[in-house]
């Protein structure tokens, strides 16, 4: 009997397991885990429940897109870039098209610029709804994912009608967009916006004012403003820290400078305020899309380009930025005058949020908050992997 007890307490397998020096242990979360956004792993070192060290591990979704793009024609890459970020693919298409337009000096018709803004904002809306569901799931509130993801489906229906694709749209072409609105599309967009706006009070009752959410998220993962700026935070996460920076305003592109919207900010910069800033952005985005529908002019949607299989983009380099639902999204494109890009560097927003900031922010929090923190930063692993 006594032999059995000795065998089970583990001391023969792990000598010194009970000593004070060995209080720390390692725990892996991911790469396949419902509490991690995408294929991503967190290697945590814990002492009791408290995280003392965190390392991230990526590469589970590495597709080598940057290398692949150097082997493909400019037109072929349009179908590649959107796959870099799954929940919010359109900033990729936007950046890629805009980089070619800047290098080749192509003008985009005004109607196409408005349509691009509409697509970008619908994509932001869909992405935020996705994040609400994900965040709720990490703290055990499973009604919210069902609601927000089924509501997101209405936006995907709009995308399917406009572009033919639900998740990936392959819609922006250098020189404009692929096709104009189908008949009656604008009114269906308005219907979906009215529906989502009408759902927000329900979301508030179910989720944002939920006592469990407040208990779990307020005060977790505080990222003070100066620290946030030093660590390279961008987008909603920086605005939740009280710094009003938005690429749409400060480095305006397409027709954002003709639309009226504010940059909402909060100052607590904890997991709860990073969630609430996205709740505020949903309202702001609905307003932007309504303005687009009001102001959109008639006209062509594509400035017709010659045979796309023979495009040669003039030699040069350009750095284009846009505001994705996760933060600053930038492309650095170099062309040597050939039919393929010489180099495309993708700077995803999650490259900073998902690695450096997450690793540092996790330290000192408790194990049950690790997933929540990752979702509150809205780190998107496909952007890190590329």
């Amino acid at each position, binding site marked *: 009997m006594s032999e059995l007890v000795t065998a089970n307490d583990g001391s023969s397998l792990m000598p010194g397991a009970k000593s004070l020096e060995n209080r720390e242990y390692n725990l892996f979360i991911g790469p396949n885990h419902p509490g991690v956004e995408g294929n991503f792993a967190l290697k945590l070192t814990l002492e009791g429940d408290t995280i003392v060290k965190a390392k991230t591990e990526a*590469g589970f979704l*590495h597709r*080598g897109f940057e290398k692949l793009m150097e*082997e493909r024609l400019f037109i072929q890459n349009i179908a590649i870039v959107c796959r870099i970020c799954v929940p919010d693919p359109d900033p990729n298409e936007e950046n890629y098209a805009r980089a070619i337009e800047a290098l080749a000096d192509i003008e985009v018709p005004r109607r196409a610029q408005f349509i691009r803004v509409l697509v970008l904002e619908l994509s932001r809306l869909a992405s935020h709804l996705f994040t609400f569901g994900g965040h709720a799931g990490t703290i055990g509130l499973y009604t919210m994912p069902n609601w927000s993801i089924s509501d997101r489906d209405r936006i995907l229906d709009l995308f399917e009608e406009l572009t033919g694709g639900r998740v990936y749209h392959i819609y922006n072409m250098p020189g404009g967009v692929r096709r104009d609105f189908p008949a009656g599309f604008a009114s269906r967009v308005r219907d979906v916006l009215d529906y989502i706006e009408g759902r927000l009070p329900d979301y508030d009752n179910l989720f944002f004012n939920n006592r469990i959410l407040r208990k779990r998220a307020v005060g977790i993962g505080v990222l003070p403003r100066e*620290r946030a700026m030093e660590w390279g935070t961008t987008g909603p996460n920086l605005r939740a820290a009280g710094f009003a920076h938005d690429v749409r305003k400060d*480095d305006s592109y397409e027709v954002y400078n003709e639309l009226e919207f504010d940059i909402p900010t909060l100052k607590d910069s904890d997991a709860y305020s990073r969630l609430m800033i996205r709740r505020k952005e949903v309202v702001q985005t609905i307003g932007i899309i309504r303005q687009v529908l009001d102001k959109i002019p008639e006209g062509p949607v594509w400035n017709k380009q010659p045979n796309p299989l023979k495009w040669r983009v003039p030699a040069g380099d350009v750095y284009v930025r846009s505001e994705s639902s996760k933060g600053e999204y930038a492309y650095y494109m170099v062309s040597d005058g050939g039919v393929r890009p010489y180099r495309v*560097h993708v700077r995803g927003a999650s*490259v900073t949020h998902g690695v450096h900031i997450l690793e540092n922010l996790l330290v000192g929090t408790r194990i049950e908050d690790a997933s929540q923190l990752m979702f509150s930063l809205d780190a998107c692993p496909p952007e890190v992997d590329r």
Partner: protein
Amino acid sequence: MIADNYLAHTADPRVRKPEAATGSPRIEEEIIKAIQDATGNESFSLKAPRRIEGPVDSDRLHTLASLIWSRVGFQHLSAISCVDWLAEDEFELVYHFWSYRDFCLVSAKTRIPRETASMPTVSDLWQPALFFERDIHEMFGVVFEGNPDLEKYILSDWDGPPPMRKDFITREFAHDHFHFRDYEPDWDELVKGGYHSNRGEGGTDV
């Protein structure tokens, strides 16, 4: 309470902000002038609205970057891009700095030989550079002196050459390392007597 706990764990005396990062916005010409005054570098010029760029010698880049941070006030390092210019036998590193004060991007371009491929880190000035440099080290093999963590990240089980280099040909690598299946076999011969007839002993798995 929890916030205090967090701060105790990550107390870092390096949180600092350059004085020049605040103030009234400057136009592009004023920024070019400010860079000239601070660094003595006269090669920066306007490329497009809100875009300034200029070449820098690689041994001067860190000094220039620290002056751009402190005296000109560019607080945000947006990205570091690496381009492999195989014909010239050089890597080009492009540092993209963004100013929250002026809403303007400055790109500093520097070239280093492919053979030595070494560069001092700027992670002492901008912390996001820690990962940007690690990524470039992994994909291009450039060594950033002073960066504490250049471990493999995305390609953790890769032992080949840095794959983003232009002399790494993906197609050749695939041909050398992977077996290609015959996608146009003689189906009539293979499935003679029924599809599963050849799955037994001595048969070929289609």
